[in-house]
């Protein structure tokens, strides 16, 4: 009997989790680690003095505050973890709640789309919200474009911003040097970016995984460095200024007599252009989405997904992995180019500063956080990331710090993204019986 009753107290002790002593010890260790980590970096501040000589002063108050925060934070996190239960367990959600969630899930995309269409109507007088909407939609489009490469074809691209840059500079240079209109330049920018995508695709065809990652990263840096240093063409660090604004198929949105407002007989307002830009990027983003969804159902899209799941099996099935990879790179790059051209026309000014690795990482984070391959997930992730990023605008120099931390925490919390499905598009619904005379022994 004793053998049966004895384990019982131990079991309850485990379910209650580690005791106060354990939590305290853990927090103490964290605080100690923090003390060593921050000792010199926070505790001492260096600055170049008036004579050029470095001087330093101590900030032990800040150091103490940081260590105390880590100590307290560690206790809070540990308590939260106990209260929430072990990480990774599926919490039981009641059946009615689940069905409600499923219904919302089905409606969220159309509702979001209708809302997006109505944004300029609802927030007509709020310039800030319209600008933010344009920014979010630009990232939605970039995310959907990169999703083709990373989410569908499974090729890790860390230099996506290069194509964005190619598109932006193509439009800026064509428009300022040759006076071509936005609508002529848009396809050209897309074609040029796709061309660069293929050019990048060729050397990386034989590479996989992390080799691919580093080559794309290097490619992104090469494009940026060339833009900075080829001063005669790109204006170097000063960028290109005076990029023409887009027109509504030849009708400029200006207060003049030939402007859109005068032709329609309404009073001119600068908001018209913002609203126009909003619908323009919405149309471009929806185009990206539509093309992606259509392509997924075609053999090429299925080849992408097959490539993502298993390259060896893919080749064994007779899929040409060369064309599959190249088309994925070219398609993704083309949408990046469109987004770049839009960016150039919206800003009216571009410089290499807008095309750093940070942008690539941001777009990649959007795709991965959205759940690779999920169109809705990417849109929601773009909204969350860019919206969240805007919330911290006031914090200025702490903004990137918070962004980095958020990236780490989000990955730990949801490593598979917000909508973490990546089921293949095609299913065989009925199991089929295969006659035995079709299957040779040992080849089944």
């Amino acid at each position: 009997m004793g053998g049966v009753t004895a384990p019982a107290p131990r079991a309850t002790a485990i379910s209650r989790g580690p005791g106060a002593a354990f939590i305290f010890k853990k927090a103490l260790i964290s605080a100690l680690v923090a003390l060593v980590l921050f000792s010199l970096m926070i505790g001492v501040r260096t600055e170049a003095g008036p004579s050029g000589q470095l001087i330093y002063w101590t900030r032990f108050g800040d150091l103490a505050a940081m260590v105390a925060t880590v100590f307290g934070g560690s206790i809070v996190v540990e308590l939260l973890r106990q209260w929430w239960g072990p990480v990774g367990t599926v919490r039981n959600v009641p059946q009615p709640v689940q069905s409600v969630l499923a219904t919302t899930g089905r409606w969220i995309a159309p509702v979001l789309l209708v809302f997006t269409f109505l944004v300029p109507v609802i927030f007509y007088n709020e310039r800030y919200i319209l600008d933010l909407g344009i920014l979010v939609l630009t990232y939605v489009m970039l995310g959907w474009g990169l999703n083709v490469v990373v989410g569908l074809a499974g090729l890790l691209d860390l230099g996506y911003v290069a194509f964005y840059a190619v598109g932006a500079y193509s439009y800026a240079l064509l428009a300022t040097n040759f006076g071509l209109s936005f609508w002529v330049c848009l396809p050209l920018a897309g074609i040029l970016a796709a061309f660069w995508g293929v050019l990048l695709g060729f050397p990386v065809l034989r590479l996989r995984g992390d080799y691919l990652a580093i080559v794309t990263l290097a490619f992104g840096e090469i494009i940026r460095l060339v833009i900075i240093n080829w001063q005669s063409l790109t204006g170097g660090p000063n960028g290109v200024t005076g990029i023409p604004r887009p027109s509504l198929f030849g009708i400029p949105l200006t207060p003049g007599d030939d402007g859109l407002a005068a032709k329609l007989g309404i009073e001119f307002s600068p908001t018209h252009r913002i609203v126009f830009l909003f619908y323009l990027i919405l149309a471009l983003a929806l185009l990206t989405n539509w093309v992606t969804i259509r392509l997924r159902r075609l053999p090429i899209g299925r080849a992408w997904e097959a490539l993502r799941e298993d390259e060896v099996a893919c080749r064994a099935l007779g899929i040409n992995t060369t064309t599959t990879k190249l088309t994925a790179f070219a398609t993704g790059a083309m949408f990046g180019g469109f987004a770049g051209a839009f960016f150039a026309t919206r800003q009216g000014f571009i410089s290499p500063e807008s095309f750093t690795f940070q942008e690539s990482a941001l777009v990649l984070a959007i795709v991965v956080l959205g759940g690779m391959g999920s169109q809705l997930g990417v849109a929601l992730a773009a909204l969350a990331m860019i919206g969240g990023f805007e919330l911290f605008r006031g914090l200025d120099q702490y903004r990137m710090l918070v962004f980095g931390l958020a990236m780490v925490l989000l990955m730990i919390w949801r490593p598979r993204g917000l909508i973490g499905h990546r089921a293949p598009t095609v299913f065989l619904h009925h199991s089929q019986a295969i006659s035995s005379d079709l299957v040779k022994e040992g080849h089944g």
Partner: protein
Amino acid sequence: MDYFAQQLINGIVLGSIYGLIAIGYTMVYGIVGMINFAHGDIFMIGGFIALISFLILVSFGLTFVPVILLIVLLVSMAITALYGWTVERIAYRPLRHSFRLAPMLSAIGMSFVLTNYSQVAQGARVKPVPPIITGGYTLHEGAGGFVVQLSNIQIIVVVTTVVLLALFTWLVARTRLGRDMRACEQDQTMAALLGVDVDRTISMTFVIGAALAAVAGMMYLLYYGLVDFFMGFVAGIKAFTAAVLGGIGSLPGAMLGGLAIGLIETLWSAYFSVEYKDVAAFSILIVVLIFMPTGLLGRPEVEKV
């Protein structure tokens, strides 16, 4: 010829620094199979810690240079190693069994955190220090008055690198920890079944990689006489390029790749243009990978079907 010899020396010194950082990339990649994106920033932190500890020691009135250097070396290695440990603990361990991209993105996030943390903590300006080690040797005096010089600091950088590389090769090949590391590299599950503490081994890999990056950071500070919060990004990409070029996962490969990148960069700036030196380094990486997809000394990847 003299000019070329001088550039060769400069290239080898720069290459040694890249090689030291590249070892950290190669080790982590070998064991975890992941690019440690925060490694370049660990190098930057190492440079900062060396700078600050150096300032403090000097203000305490210490003047004997070898002692200063030794203390700075030990302090920056110790603290930076703890940074490496923390990065592994926060950004890698919770994602050990997650899918491939997740730890990479959390490491990119960690890299942003470290860059901006040091910007907030120490300011965005470049921190210069006066030359600590001066003097050197004149190797050859050319006819045109061009002098080939080998400065003491250059000797120190190369000697430190060679010593550390030898020490490290011994560590991987002969010690218990090295054996555990090689076991984890082969098969983590099997190693764990046979009694290897996988978590501890991976932690130690990060710690050692960070300590070597700290040495590289200190050498960079001594050689160039400055540090700034953004230097980790560029040096990190270059060192990672070096690791890939040499064949990622291979220790001699990392050193060879580091030397190659250092030489290419120096010779390109000497004979062509300074502006395009990084473009040259990255282009050569792409060209090498086209013909040798696993790098110079890399083993061909076995496809598991």
